[in-house]
Protein backbone atom coordinates (compact mmCIF):
# COMPACT_ATOMS: atom_id res chain seq x y z
CA UNK A 1 0.00 0.00 0.00
CA UNK A 2 1.06 3.67 -0.25
CA UNK A 3 0.10 6.81 1.58
CA UNK A 4 0.13 10.28 0.13
CA UNK A 5 3.24 12.43 0.69
CA UNK A 6 2.99 14.00 4.14
CA UNK A 7 0.50 11.24 5.05
CA UNK A 8 -2.58 13.48 5.24
CA UNK A 9 -5.40 11.96 7.30
CA UNK A 10 -8.60 13.11 8.96
CA UNK A 11 -8.12 14.38 12.50
CA UNK A 12 -11.67 13.43 13.54
CA UNK A 13 -13.45 10.12 13.45
CA UNK A 14 -16.89 11.26 12.40
CA UNK A 15 -16.89 12.37 8.77
CA UNK A 16 -19.83 13.75 6.85
CA UNK A 17 -20.53 12.94 3.23
CA UNK A 18 -23.03 14.20 0.70
CA UNK A 19 -23.88 13.24 -2.87
CA UNK A 20 -24.37 16.62 -4.48
CA UNK A 21 -24.82 15.48 -8.10
CA UNK A 22 -26.20 12.13 -9.32
CA UNK A 23 -25.86 10.21 -12.56
CA UNK A 24 -28.61 9.35 -15.04
CA UNK A 25 -27.36 5.80 -15.37
CA UNK A 26 -28.47 4.74 -11.88
CA UNK A 27 -31.34 5.70 -9.57
CA UNK A 28 -30.40 8.01 -6.68
CA UNK A 29 -31.36 5.25 -4.28
CA UNK A 30 -28.92 2.85 -5.95
CA UNK A 31 -26.17 5.48 -5.87
CA UNK A 32 -26.83 6.12 -2.18
CA UNK A 33 -26.72 2.39 -1.47
CA UNK A 34 -23.45 1.86 -3.34
CA UNK A 35 -21.86 4.87 -1.60
CA UNK A 36 -23.00 3.70 1.82
CA UNK A 37 -21.67 0.16 1.21
CA UNK A 38 -18.38 1.53 -0.11
CA UNK A 39 -17.84 3.70 2.98
CA UNK A 40 -18.78 0.78 5.21
CA UNK A 41 -16.06 -1.30 3.58
CA UNK A 42 -13.56 1.04 5.25
CA UNK A 43 -15.32 1.71 8.54
CA UNK A 44 -15.24 -2.00 9.34
CA UNK A 45 -11.44 -1.77 9.47
CA UNK A 46 -10.84 1.55 11.25
CA UNK A 47 -12.60 3.66 13.91
CA UNK A 48 -14.15 6.08 11.42
CA UNK A 49 -17.88 6.78 11.21
CA UNK A 50 -19.63 8.31 8.23
CA UNK A 51 -22.70 10.49 8.53
CA UNK A 52 -24.70 11.44 5.47
CA UNK A 53 -25.96 15.02 5.12
CA UNK A 54 -28.25 16.32 2.36
CA UNK A 55 -27.28 19.98 2.26
CA UNK A 56 -24.33 22.24 2.92
CA UNK A 57 -20.64 21.36 2.80
CA UNK A 58 -19.65 17.84 3.83
CA UNK A 59 -16.14 16.57 4.46
CA UNK A 60 -16.52 14.22 1.51
CA UNK A 61 -18.51 15.85 -1.29
CA UNK A 62 -19.45 13.27 -3.92
CA UNK A 63 -20.56 14.17 -7.43
CA UNK A 64 -20.80 12.86 -10.99
CA UNK A 65 -19.00 15.26 -13.31
CA UNK A 66 -18.32 15.54 -17.05
CA UNK A 67 -15.13 16.59 -18.83
CA UNK A 68 -13.40 19.64 -17.34
CA UNK A 69 -15.20 20.23 -14.07
CA UNK A 70 -12.95 22.84 -12.54
CA UNK A 71 -10.43 20.89 -10.48
CA UNK A 72 -7.61 20.70 -13.04
CA UNK A 73 -8.22 16.95 -13.50
CA UNK A 74 -10.66 16.87 -16.44
CA UNK A 75 -12.44 13.61 -17.23
CA UNK A 76 -11.96 11.99 -20.62
CA UNK A 77 -15.26 10.48 -21.71
CA UNK A 78 -16.15 6.77 -21.70
CA UNK A 79 -13.52 4.34 -20.26
CA UNK A 80 -10.05 5.68 -19.57
CA UNK A 81 -10.31 7.62 -16.33
CA UNK A 82 -13.37 6.51 -14.32
CA UNK A 83 -13.13 8.70 -11.21
CA UNK A 84 -10.77 10.46 -8.85
CA UNK A 85 -10.69 11.66 -5.24
CA UNK A 86 -8.63 14.09 -3.21
CA UNK A 87 -6.58 13.30 -0.15
CA UNK A 88 -7.95 14.33 3.27
CA UNK A 89 -8.04 18.07 3.87
CA UNK A 90 -10.16 21.19 3.94
CA UNK A 91 -12.19 22.32 0.91
CA UNK A 92 -11.50 19.97 -2.00
CA UNK A 93 -9.85 17.50 0.36
CA UNK A 94 -11.74 14.21 0.49
CA UNK A 95 -14.01 15.19 -2.39
CA UNK A 96 -14.77 12.38 -4.83
CA UNK A 97 -15.79 12.78 -8.48
CA UNK A 98 -17.08 10.13 -10.87
CA UNK A 99 -17.01 10.50 -14.66
CA UNK A 100 -20.61 10.92 -15.75
CA UNK A 101 -19.69 9.69 -19.22
CA UNK A 102 -19.29 6.15 -17.87
CA UNK A 103 -22.14 3.64 -17.61
CA UNK A 104 -22.46 3.14 -13.85
CA UNK A 105 -24.21 0.09 -12.45
CA UNK A 106 -24.88 -1.90 -9.31
CA UNK A 107 -23.96 -5.07 -11.25
CA UNK A 108 -21.62 -5.96 -14.06
CA UNK A 109 -23.15 -4.43 -17.16
CA UNK A 110 -21.07 -1.28 -16.92
CA UNK A 111 -18.66 -0.04 -14.25
CA UNK A 112 -19.72 -1.19 -10.81
CA UNK A 113 -20.19 1.95 -8.71
CA UNK A 114 -19.52 0.17 -5.43
CA UNK A 115 -16.16 -1.07 -6.72
CA UNK A 116 -14.98 2.34 -7.93
CA UNK A 117 -16.42 4.24 -4.96
CA UNK A 118 -14.72 1.94 -2.44
CA UNK A 119 -11.41 2.55 -4.22
CA UNK A 120 -11.91 6.34 -4.40
CA UNK A 121 -12.88 6.57 -0.74
CA UNK A 122 -9.55 4.92 0.03
CA UNK A 123 -7.95 8.03 -1.49
CA UNK A 124 -10.38 10.32 0.34
CA UNK A 125 -9.20 8.72 3.59
CA UNK A 126 -5.51 9.04 2.75
CA UNK A 127 -4.40 6.02 0.73
CA UNK A 128 -2.48 6.29 -2.55
CA UNK A 129 -2.32 3.53 -5.13
CA UNK A 130 -1.06 0.10 -4.19
CA UNK A 131 1.26 -2.00 -6.35
CA UNK A 132 -0.44 -5.18 -5.05
CA UNK A 133 -2.70 -6.47 -7.86
CA UNK A 134 -5.06 -8.02 -5.30
CA UNK A 135 -5.52 -4.73 -3.45
CA UNK A 136 -8.62 -2.57 -3.78
CA UNK A 137 -6.23 0.41 -4.15
CA UNK A 138 -4.64 -1.03 -7.30
CA UNK A 139 -5.12 1.66 -9.99
CA UNK A 140 -6.97 -0.38 -12.66
CA UNK A 141 -10.63 -1.40 -12.51
CA UNK A 142 -11.52 -4.90 -11.40
CA UNK A 143 -15.12 -5.77 -10.52
CA UNK A 144 -15.89 -6.54 -6.87
CA UNK A 145 -19.14 -8.17 -5.81
CA UNK A 146 -20.63 -5.64 -3.35
CA UNK A 147 -22.44 -8.36 -1.45
CA UNK A 148 -19.39 -10.53 -0.92
CA UNK A 149 -16.73 -7.90 -0.55
CA UNK A 150 -13.99 -8.18 2.07
CA UNK A 151 -11.33 -5.47 2.27
CA UNK A 152 -8.09 -7.10 1.03
CA UNK A 153 -5.21 -7.44 3.49
CA UNK A 154 -3.00 -4.81 1.83
CA UNK A 155 -5.74 -2.20 2.12
CA UNK A 156 -6.45 -3.09 5.76
CA UNK A 157 -2.76 -2.64 6.57
CA UNK A 158 -2.68 0.69 4.77
CA UNK A 159 -5.77 2.24 6.31
CA UNK A 160 -4.87 0.97 9.78
CA UNK A 161 -1.42 2.53 9.39
CA UNK A 162 -3.29 5.84 9.29
CA UNK A 163 -6.14 5.32 11.76
CA UNK A 164 -5.35 2.18 13.74
CA UNK A 165 -7.72 -0.81 13.94
CA UNK A 166 -11.39 -0.57 14.84
CA UNK A 167 -11.45 -1.99 18.34
CA UNK A 168 -14.28 -3.93 19.86
CA UNK A 169 -15.32 -1.98 22.91
CA UNK A 170 -12.82 -3.05 25.68
CA UNK A 171 -14.90 -1.94 28.65
CA UNK A 172 -18.10 -3.33 30.15
CA UNK A 173 -20.75 -3.20 27.49
CA UNK A 174 -22.86 -0.11 28.29
CA UNK A 175 -25.75 -1.70 26.45
CA UNK A 176 -27.61 -4.52 28.19
CA UNK A 177 -25.95 -7.70 27.01
CA UNK A 178 -27.91 -8.86 24.01
CA UNK A 179 -27.58 -12.61 23.48
CA UNK A 180 -26.15 -13.32 20.01
CA UNK A 181 -29.26 -13.49 17.87
CA UNK A 182 -29.62 -16.59 15.80
CA UNK A 183 -28.90 -15.16 12.36
CA UNK A 184 -32.00 -15.66 10.32
CA UNK A 185 -31.90 -17.75 7.21
CA UNK A 186 -30.94 -15.59 4.22
CA UNK A 187 -33.97 -14.53 2.26
CA UNK A 188 -34.34 -17.87 0.51
CA UNK A 189 -35.98 -16.39 -2.55
CA UNK A 190 -34.00 -13.18 -2.69
CA UNK A 191 -34.00 -12.87 -6.42
CA UNK A 192 -31.13 -10.40 -6.43
CA UNK A 193 -28.55 -12.84 -5.20
CA UNK A 194 -26.77 -15.82 -6.62
CA UNK A 195 -25.16 -18.95 -5.24
CA UNK A 196 -21.65 -19.24 -3.92
CA UNK A 197 -21.14 -22.71 -5.40
CA UNK A 198 -23.11 -25.43 -7.24
CA UNK A 199 -22.09 -29.05 -7.81
CA UNK A 200 -23.44 -32.50 -8.39
CA UNK A 201 -22.73 -34.92 -5.57
CA UNK A 202 -23.73 -38.42 -6.58
CA UNK A 203 -27.32 -38.18 -7.76
CA UNK A 204 -28.07 -34.88 -6.05
CA UNK A 205 -27.48 -31.28 -7.03
CA UNK A 206 -26.07 -29.14 -4.21
CA UNK A 207 -26.43 -25.34 -4.21
CA UNK A 208 -24.46 -23.35 -1.63
CA UNK A 209 -25.13 -19.85 -0.28
CA UNK A 210 -23.65 -18.22 2.83
CA UNK A 211 -24.15 -20.82 5.62
CA UNK A 212 -26.83 -22.79 3.80
CA UNK A 213 -26.94 -25.40 1.07
CA UNK A 214 -29.89 -26.96 -0.75
CA UNK A 215 -30.07 -30.55 -2.00
CA UNK A 216 -32.31 -31.49 -4.89
CA UNK A 217 -32.77 -34.04 -7.59
CA UNK A 218 -31.77 -32.68 -10.98
CA UNK A 219 -35.13 -33.39 -12.61
CA UNK A 220 -37.35 -32.90 -9.60
CA UNK A 221 -38.01 -29.47 -8.20
CA UNK A 222 -40.02 -30.83 -5.27
CA UNK A 223 -38.67 -31.56 -1.80
CA UNK A 224 -35.92 -28.99 -1.92
CA UNK A 225 -34.85 -28.12 1.58
CA UNK A 226 -32.13 -25.93 3.06
CA UNK A 227 -29.48 -27.42 5.31
CA UNK A 228 -26.73 -25.74 7.26
CA UNK A 229 -23.32 -26.37 5.72
CA UNK A 230 -21.86 -27.18 9.15
CA UNK A 231 -24.35 -30.02 9.54
CA UNK A 232 -22.85 -31.93 6.62
CA UNK A 233 -19.48 -30.24 6.00
CA UNK A 234 -18.31 -29.03 9.42
CA UNK A 235 -14.87 -27.98 8.10
CA UNK A 236 -16.41 -25.73 5.45
CA UNK A 237 -18.55 -23.74 7.92
CA UNK A 238 -19.93 -21.17 5.42
CA UNK A 239 -19.32 -19.17 2.24
CA UNK A 240 -17.96 -21.92 0.01
CA UNK A 241 -16.27 -20.26 -2.99
CA UNK A 242 -16.63 -23.11 -5.51
CA UNK A 243 -17.24 -26.84 -5.86
CA UNK A 244 -17.16 -29.55 -8.51
CA UNK A 245 -17.39 -33.32 -8.79
CA UNK A 246 -15.47 -35.82 -10.91
CA UNK A 247 -18.11 -38.56 -11.06
CA UNK A 248 -15.76 -41.07 -12.70
CA UNK A 249 -13.65 -40.95 -9.56
CA UNK A 250 -16.51 -40.46 -7.11
CA UNK A 251 -14.71 -37.45 -5.69
CA UNK A 252 -15.91 -33.88 -5.10
CA UNK A 253 -13.79 -30.79 -4.47
CA UNK A 254 -14.82 -27.84 -2.28
CA UNK A 255 -12.94 -24.54 -2.37
CA UNK A 256 -12.63 -21.78 0.17
CA UNK A 257 -9.98 -19.05 -0.10
CA UNK A 258 -6.63 -20.64 -1.03
CA UNK A 259 -7.72 -24.08 0.27
CA UNK A 260 -9.77 -27.01 -0.97
CA UNK A 261 -11.15 -30.19 0.52
CA UNK A 262 -11.79 -33.52 -1.21
CA UNK A 263 -14.86 -35.56 -0.31
CA UNK A 264 -16.23 -38.93 -1.29
CA UNK A 265 -19.93 -38.24 -1.03
CA UNK A 266 -20.23 -36.33 2.23
CA UNK A 267 -17.09 -37.93 3.68
CA UNK A 268 -14.08 -35.59 3.92
CA UNK A 269 -10.95 -37.23 2.53
CA UNK A 270 -8.20 -35.76 4.68
CA UNK A 271 -7.16 -32.22 5.63
CA UNK A 272 -7.46 -29.13 3.41
CA UNK A 273 -4.91 -28.66 0.63
CA UNK A 274 -3.85 -25.56 -1.30
CA UNK A 275 -5.33 -24.55 -4.64
CA UNK A 276 -1.80 -24.22 -6.02
CA UNK A 277 -1.80 -28.04 -6.29
CA UNK A 278 -3.75 -27.47 -9.52
CA UNK A 279 -1.05 -25.17 -10.92
CA UNK A 280 -2.95 -21.94 -10.33
CA UNK A 281 -0.60 -18.92 -10.14
CA UNK A 282 0.23 -17.58 -6.69
CA UNK A 283 -1.51 -14.29 -7.46
CA UNK A 284 -4.80 -16.18 -7.35
CA UNK A 285 -5.98 -16.00 -3.74
CA UNK A 286 -9.31 -17.71 -4.26
CA UNK A 287 -11.51 -18.99 -7.07
CA UNK A 288 -15.03 -17.85 -7.83
CA UNK A 289 -16.38 -20.97 -9.53
CA UNK A 290 -15.35 -24.38 -10.86
CA UNK A 291 -17.00 -26.83 -13.25
CA UNK A 292 -15.93 -30.29 -14.44
CA UNK A 293 -16.65 -30.97 -18.12
CA UNK A 294 -17.29 -34.69 -18.56
CA UNK A 295 -16.49 -35.09 -22.26
CA UNK A 296 -13.02 -33.46 -22.33
CA UNK A 297 -12.46 -34.45 -18.67
CA UNK A 298 -11.33 -30.95 -17.87
CA UNK A 299 -12.13 -28.64 -14.98
CA UNK A 300 -12.55 -24.92 -15.54
CA UNK A 301 -11.59 -22.57 -12.69
CA UNK A 302 -13.13 -19.09 -12.86
CA UNK A 303 -11.22 -16.19 -11.26
CA UNK A 304 -12.67 -12.71 -11.76
CA UNK A 305 -13.19 -12.12 -15.48
CA UNK A 306 -10.87 -14.98 -16.53
CA UNK A 307 -10.74 -18.77 -16.33
CA UNK A 308 -8.17 -21.57 -16.29
CA UNK A 309 -8.49 -25.13 -17.68
CA UNK A 310 -7.17 -28.11 -15.68
CA UNK A 311 -6.72 -31.47 -17.40
CA UNK A 312 -8.02 -34.07 -14.90
CA UNK A 313 -6.43 -36.98 -16.81
CA UNK A 314 -2.96 -35.45 -17.08
CA UNK A 315 -3.42 -33.77 -13.69
CA UNK A 316 -2.04 -30.49 -14.88
CA UNK A 317 -3.10 -26.98 -15.87
CA UNK A 318 -3.43 -26.44 -19.58
CA UNK A 319 -1.20 -23.95 -21.41
CA UNK A 320 -2.41 -20.61 -22.90
CA UNK A 321 -4.61 -19.82 -19.92
CA UNK A 322 -6.13 -17.75 -18.34
CA UNK A 323 -8.58 -16.70 -21.01
CA UNK A 324 -11.29 -14.08 -20.79
CA UNK A 325 -14.61 -15.67 -19.87
CA UNK A 326 -16.85 -13.36 -21.86
CA UNK A 327 -14.69 -13.77 -24.96
CA UNK A 328 -14.75 -17.58 -24.81
CA UNK A 329 -18.33 -18.12 -23.62
CA UNK A 330 -20.36 -15.75 -25.74
CA UNK A 331 -23.56 -14.62 -24.11
CA UNK A 332 -22.31 -15.27 -20.59
CA UNK A 333 -22.00 -11.78 -19.20
CA UNK A 334 -20.67 -10.75 -15.86
CA UNK A 335 -18.94 -12.39 -13.00
CA UNK A 336 -19.31 -16.16 -12.70
CA UNK A 337 -20.38 -16.98 -9.14
CA UNK A 338 -20.89 -20.72 -9.69
CA UNK A 339 -21.07 -23.25 -12.54
CA UNK A 340 -22.16 -26.84 -13.12
CA UNK A 341 -22.50 -29.13 -16.15
CA UNK A 342 -25.79 -31.00 -16.50
CA UNK A 343 -26.83 -33.12 -19.51
CA UNK A 344 -24.13 -31.57 -21.69
CA UNK A 345 -25.05 -27.96 -20.90
CA UNK A 346 -22.95 -25.68 -18.71
CA UNK A 347 -25.01 -23.59 -16.30
CA UNK A 348 -23.28 -20.34 -15.33
CA UNK A 349 -24.68 -18.66 -12.21
CA UNK A 350 -24.04 -14.92 -12.33
CA UNK A 351 -25.85 -12.80 -9.76
CA UNK A 352 -29.59 -13.28 -10.12
CA UNK A 353 -29.25 -14.94 -13.55
CA UNK A 354 -28.31 -18.42 -14.65
CA UNK A 355 -27.06 -18.80 -18.22
CA UNK A 356 -27.62 -22.16 -19.92
CA UNK A 357 -24.69 -22.55 -22.31
CA UNK A 358 -24.76 -25.01 -25.21
CA UNK A 359 -21.20 -26.22 -25.82
CA UNK A 360 -22.12 -27.47 -29.33
CA UNK A 361 -23.66 -24.18 -30.44
CA UNK A 362 -21.08 -22.26 -28.36
CA UNK A 363 -23.78 -19.90 -27.21
CA UNK A 364 -26.25 -19.27 -24.41
CA UNK A 365 -29.58 -20.94 -25.22
CA UNK A 366 -31.58 -19.68 -22.25
CA UNK A 367 -31.39 -17.50 -19.14
CA UNK A 368 -33.36 -18.24 -15.98
CA UNK A 369 -33.58 -16.75 -12.50
CA UNK A 370 -30.98 -18.29 -10.21
CA UNK A 371 -33.48 -18.55 -7.38
CA UNK A 372 -35.69 -20.80 -9.51
CA UNK A 373 -33.23 -23.62 -8.81
CA UNK A 374 -34.40 -23.79 -5.21
CA UNK A 375 -38.04 -23.67 -6.09
CA UNK A 376 -38.65 -19.90 -5.94
Amino acid sequence: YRLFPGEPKWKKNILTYRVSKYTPSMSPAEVDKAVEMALRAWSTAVPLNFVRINSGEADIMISFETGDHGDSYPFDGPRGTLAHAFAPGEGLGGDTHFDNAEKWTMGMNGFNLFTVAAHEFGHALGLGHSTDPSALMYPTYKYQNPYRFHLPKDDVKGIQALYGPRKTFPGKPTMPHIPPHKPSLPDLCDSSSSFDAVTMLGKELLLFKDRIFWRRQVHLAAGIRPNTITSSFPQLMSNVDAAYEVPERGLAFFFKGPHYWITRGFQMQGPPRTIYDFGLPRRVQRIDAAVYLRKPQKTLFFVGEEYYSYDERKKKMEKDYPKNTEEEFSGVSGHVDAAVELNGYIYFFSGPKTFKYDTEKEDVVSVVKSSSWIGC
Partner: protein
Amino acid sequence: VPTLFAATPRTFRSSYQLAQDYLDKYYTPKGGPQAGEMVVRQGNPMVRKIKELQSFFGLQVTGKLDPTTMHVIKRPRCGVPDVAN
Protein backbone atom coordinates in the same frame (compact mmCIF):
# COMPACT_ATOMS: atom_id res chain seq x y z
CA VAL B 1 10.15 7.60 -30.84
CA PRO B 2 10.45 4.41 -32.94
CA THR B 3 12.90 3.07 -30.37
CA LEU B 4 10.09 3.17 -27.84
CA PHE B 5 8.01 0.73 -29.76
CA ALA B 6 7.94 -2.95 -29.90
CA ALA B 7 4.60 -2.52 -31.64
CA THR B 8 4.22 -2.43 -35.41
CA PRO B 9 4.54 1.02 -37.08
CA ARG B 10 0.88 0.83 -38.03
CA THR B 11 -0.31 1.45 -34.52
CA PHE B 12 2.44 3.54 -33.14
CA ARG B 13 1.07 7.02 -33.58
CA SER B 14 -2.23 6.45 -31.79
CA SER B 15 -0.57 4.23 -29.19
CA TYR B 16 2.17 6.78 -28.73
CA GLN B 17 -0.38 9.54 -28.18
CA LEU B 18 -2.36 7.34 -25.80
CA ALA B 19 0.79 6.48 -23.89
CA GLN B 20 1.94 10.07 -23.73
CA ASP B 21 -1.44 11.21 -22.35
CA TYR B 22 -1.39 8.38 -19.83
CA LEU B 23 2.13 9.16 -18.63
CA ASP B 24 1.30 12.88 -18.42
CA LYS B 25 -1.73 12.11 -16.30
CA TYR B 26 -0.41 9.47 -13.98
CA TYR B 27 3.37 9.62 -13.99
CA THR B 28 4.08 13.36 -14.15
CA PRO B 29 3.94 15.11 -10.74
CA LYS B 30 1.78 18.22 -11.06
CA GLY B 31 0.65 21.02 -8.86
CA GLY B 32 2.77 23.44 -6.91
CA PRO B 33 5.95 24.87 -8.41
CA GLN B 34 6.89 22.79 -11.39
CA ALA B 35 10.09 21.09 -10.32
CA GLY B 36 12.68 21.39 -13.06
CA GLU B 37 13.75 18.06 -14.44
CA MET B 38 17.45 17.43 -14.37
CA VAL B 39 18.01 14.69 -16.94
CA VAL B 40 21.24 13.38 -18.38
CA ARG B 41 21.77 14.60 -21.93
CA GLN B 42 20.72 11.46 -23.73
CA GLY B 43 18.02 10.63 -21.12
CA ASN B 44 14.45 10.55 -22.42
CA PRO B 45 11.85 11.51 -19.80
CA MET B 46 9.28 9.38 -21.66
CA VAL B 47 11.45 6.29 -21.34
CA ARG B 48 11.97 7.02 -17.65
CA LYS B 49 8.22 7.33 -17.07
CA ILE B 50 7.52 4.14 -19.04
CA LYS B 51 9.99 2.35 -16.80
CA GLU B 52 8.29 3.85 -13.74
CA LEU B 53 4.90 2.59 -14.99
CA GLN B 54 6.29 -0.88 -15.75
CA SER B 55 7.89 -1.05 -12.34
CA PHE B 56 4.66 0.03 -10.61
CA PHE B 57 2.58 -2.62 -12.39
CA GLY B 58 5.20 -5.30 -11.91
CA LEU B 59 5.88 -5.60 -15.65
CA GLN B 60 9.26 -6.29 -17.25
CA VAL B 61 11.05 -2.93 -17.16
CA THR B 62 12.08 -2.32 -20.77
CA GLY B 63 11.30 1.36 -21.29
CA LYS B 64 9.43 0.28 -24.43
CA LEU B 65 5.70 0.47 -25.14
CA ASP B 66 5.41 -3.29 -25.67
CA PRO B 67 1.97 -4.98 -25.96
CA THR B 68 1.83 -5.86 -22.24
CA THR B 69 2.49 -2.24 -21.30
CA MET B 70 -0.07 -0.97 -23.82
CA HIS B 71 -2.60 -3.46 -22.40
CA VAL B 72 -2.22 -1.83 -18.99
CA ILE B 73 -2.42 1.67 -20.50
CA LYS B 74 -5.73 0.79 -22.16
CA ARG B 75 -7.39 -0.53 -19.02
CA PRO B 76 -10.05 1.64 -17.33
CA ARG B 77 -8.64 3.06 -14.10
CA CYS B 78 -8.70 5.62 -11.32
CA GLY B 79 -7.75 9.19 -12.17
CA VAL B 80 -5.41 9.67 -9.20
CA PRO B 81 -1.75 9.67 -10.32
CA ASP B 82 0.42 6.67 -9.42
CA VAL B 83 3.40 8.83 -8.53
CA ALA B 84 3.56 11.15 -5.54
CA ASN B 85 1.46 14.13 -6.34
